[in-house]
């Protein structure tokens, strides 16, 4: 297992997340794709910490913060989606366009 193997895994995971964000219409599916992208970033940070950083610490600390923000983001996003579903009876982002100019 070399560094570039892990980097390729991370790039592939991020690309799948990009596809999900762009192609999905359901807000929950978009949220899951964003989680995939955040995990790709985490894999990259941990790999750099293990392979490149002499102290081997900074990447892991940053990963802890990314996981924290991801948890906060999911809680808020699910609250917004529940609210949207109650108000519009749909979770389709194409139909939630009342703020679009």
């Amino acid at each position, binding site marked *: 297992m070399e560094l570039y193997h*892990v980097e390729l895994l991370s790039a592939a995971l991020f690309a799948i997340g990009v596809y999900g964000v762009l*192609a999905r219409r359901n807000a929950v599916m978009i949220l899951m794709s964003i989680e995939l992208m955040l995990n790709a970033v985490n894999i990259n940070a941990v790999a750099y910490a293990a392979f490149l950083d002499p102290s*081997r610490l900074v990447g892991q*600390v940053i990963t802890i913060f990314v996981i924290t923000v991801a948890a906060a983001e999911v809680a808020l996003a699910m609250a917004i989606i529940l609210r949207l579903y109650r108000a519009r009876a749909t979770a389709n982002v194409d139909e939630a366009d009342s703020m679009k100019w």
Partner: protein
Amino acid sequence: MDASAVAFTFLAVMVLGGAIGVVTTRNVAHAALFLLLSLVSVAGVFILLMAEFLALVQVLIYGGAITIVLLFALMLTRAEEFSNVRDNPQWAVAAVAALSFLGVMAGVILNNKLDTQELAGPSLEGLGTELFTNWVLPFEIASLVLLMALIGAIILARASDGQGQGDTLDPRSLTGTDGANDQTPEERS
């Protein structure tokens, strides 16, 4: 191939297979379970990268909290559309964008193989010391972010009391035909 390469290949297949399941399945509950598979496999990759603490955090927060929140929210909404979601018509553009991103990244990665040191990880003690000395201000800000997200989620998702019913979907307000029936007999006469 040594043992770590075999384990890494297995885990990479699980991660990418779960991720492809997330973005292709039509059932949101299935997508959440695929997401769980992918995230737990990422925890395995963390173990291979000597980040045992992060692997534990990954399983606890992603497997134990985020996926459960997603499934709970799906149960609370009872949406029929969630068992058969449709994709955008622009999925072909999305596939091109994702593949071109992957192509660029693969080219950059394979043409710039960095000189690596021997694979090793920090001690848990060192991680904690670093987190509470050099990174203590971001740590405190992260706790503030979590607190505000918690309060915001409660306020947003709270069931509306009697006054707040106006923002829920009322079928009668859409048809507008039976509005007269809402009046009491005293008002009508």
